[in-house]
């Protein structure tokens, strides 16, 4: 499959009054054409920062690329000029934001907000742009698009506004669409509608999506591949089945265990103990070690490298080292692994 975006050894820091916050500490991933890659992780794990750094939307004054590269179309985005970046934003790479209530300009009719990137990036007349915008609104399921073009954001509901934001993002048929928790601020029924819409649109326009979320239910619904982030690093990456049914990293185990399940009646919901690491002074070894009951001595001293689980599946945990003792994952995870051919707990065609 064709790689459309490559993030290589990306390191990024924020300069704050307290010191240097190492928000991204060596992130590697590839994005393939037409796939949906979900990035999951708790708040502060660096998932939003990673994608915002791809778009170069972080405040220039306080953020700094320390090393690594972001390769897109043969160019390293970390080194492009502002002008060159403006030509990529909204055209080749576009973004959907978390809160539709605040991400539209309240004093500009939505029609103009949709035609803006079209007029900016394509050589079309105002009337043509308007036509495209109306088609886009129809595409995202907005009734009476001609009429609604002239209306202002406050005349739309939250779900409708997110549809408009999606229309704006799709205006120039981007190769990459970054969705930064696009459903978090919406209620559950609207969430489902927006997810359906996004899946539908992806089929129609064949774009690659990076989907940031902390909702594993959403991940299972939309993603082809999943990257789990923790403490500014990717700790495990694989296909959605591999992550959900054959997870290897203790943090992924924790995440999956803390997901409410339909099967486990009246069981107490699991919570990962402790707090996320302080990235002003990140831990020397595995960032998750302090919260992990599976941590070994080496976890405190040396960061684990990536160990290959399969061609598509990698995890950064010392537990996969040949010399590591075999440990038993949490019960809920074993239950999941039983369904996955190739895992050590596989029970054959049980389901």
């Amino acid at each position, binding site marked *: 499959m064709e790689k459309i975006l490559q993030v290589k050894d990306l390191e990024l820091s924020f300069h704050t009054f307290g010191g240097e916050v190492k928000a991204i500490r060596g992130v590697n991933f590839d994005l393939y054409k037409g796939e949906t890659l979900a990035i999951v992780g708790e708040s502060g794990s660096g998932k939003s920062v990673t994608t915002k750094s791809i778009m170069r939307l972080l405040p220039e004054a306080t953020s700094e690329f320390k090393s690594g590269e972001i390769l897109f179309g043969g160019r390293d985005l970390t080194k492009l000029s502002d002008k060159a970046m403006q030509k990529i934003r*909204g055209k080749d790479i576009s973004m959907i934001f978390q809160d539709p209530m605040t991400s539209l300009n309240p004093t500009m009719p939505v029609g103009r907000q949709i035609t803006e990137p079209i007029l900016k990036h394509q050589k079309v007349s105002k009337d043509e742009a308007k036509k495209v915008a109306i088609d886009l609104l129809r595409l995202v399921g907005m009734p009476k698009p001609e009429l609604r073009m002239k209306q202002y954001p*406050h005349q739309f509901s939250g779900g409708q506004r997110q549809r408009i934001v999606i229309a704006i993002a799709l205006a120039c048929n981007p190769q990459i669409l970054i969705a930064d928790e696009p459903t978090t601020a919406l209620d559950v029924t609207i969430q489902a509608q927006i997810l359906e819409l996004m899946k539908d649109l992806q089929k129609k326009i064949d774009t690659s999506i990076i989907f940031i979320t902390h909702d594993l239910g959403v991940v299972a619904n939309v993603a082809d591949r999943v990257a789990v982030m923790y403490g500014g690093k990717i700790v495990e990456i694989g296909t959605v089945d591999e992550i959900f049914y054959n997870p290897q990293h203790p943090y992924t185990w924790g995440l999956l265990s803390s997901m409410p399940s339909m099967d486990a009646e009246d069981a107490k919901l699991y919570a990962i103990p402790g707090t996320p690491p302080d990235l002003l002074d990140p831990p020397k070894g595995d960032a998750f070690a302090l919260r992990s009951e599976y941590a070994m001595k080496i976890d405190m001293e040396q960061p684990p490298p990536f160990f290959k689980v399969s061609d598509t599946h990698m995890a950064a945990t010392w537990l996969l080292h040949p010399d590591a003792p075999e440990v038993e994952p949490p019960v809920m995870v074993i239950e999941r692994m039983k369904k996955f051919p190739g895992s050590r707990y596989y029970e054959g065609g049980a389901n």
Partner: protein
Amino acid sequence: MARYIGKRLIYMFITLALIATFTFFLMKVLPGSPIASADKLSPEQRAVVEARYGLDQPLPVQYFNYMFGLLQGDLGISINQFKGADVTDVILSRMGPSAQIGFQGMVLGTFLGILFGMVAALRQNTWVDYTSTIVAIIGISIPSFVFASLLQYWFGLKWDLFPVALWKDGFMSSVLPSIALAMFPLATAARFIRTEMIEVLGSDYITLAKAKGASGSEIAFKHAFRNALIPLVTVLGPMAVSILTGSLVVEQIFAIPGIGEQFVKSIMVNDFSIIMGTTMFFSVFLIAIILIVDILYGVIDPRIRLSGGKN
């Protein structure tokens, strides 16, 4: 919208009636008499003059006569300041210079204020920002009469660029008083726009505009400016007041034959009908400004436009 404005006009009318009533009785409480050399006149002569201006009648009758005249748009005649001239004519003839310096001051102040504020916000925490802040603080803290005198001294006397005072050289005469009046609106607008721009530039829709590929200037002018303007509209009213009260002082200092200068004198000589007339004129002006500000809100902010229509 029409209904809303209609309602506002009725309120305006009530407000004006109340202002007229209060001013009328307050003025009557003032010591002294409009008849200049009252003590030199014999009681008979005095009675003749008082009868001529209706000052011999009991207070309530005077009040109702005045209010009735007001309803018909009759502001009465000047008692001593302009000796029998119609008050409306006096105000109209005096309006030109006041309107000119007031308008120039307001436009200059608001325009420069917005410019300073925008630049300060876009270059936050640089020397540009600090300079603009200092200018704003000076503009707010130095009273207009001090500033006016300084302008007179430097630009009038020392460098001889503009006339020091009087209204004899047309536009040139209006420059210094306009600048003196512009300082307060300038400072206010600069502070408001700066604060608001900084907040707006940090909002989600600005990030989205960036994500669309908009350039820095497009973001500042197409997206941020209009949103940053909304709170400024709120202070336009108070700013108009400051121009008015400022003009009372500034016109005096620059000896400009405007309404302010004439108003101050009329109070000194107890010219009842001029005081009343000018007060009413200022009141109408101010209330109209407040109404215009409320309508402007709707023009700038679509969210307000619609809810205004429903009421």
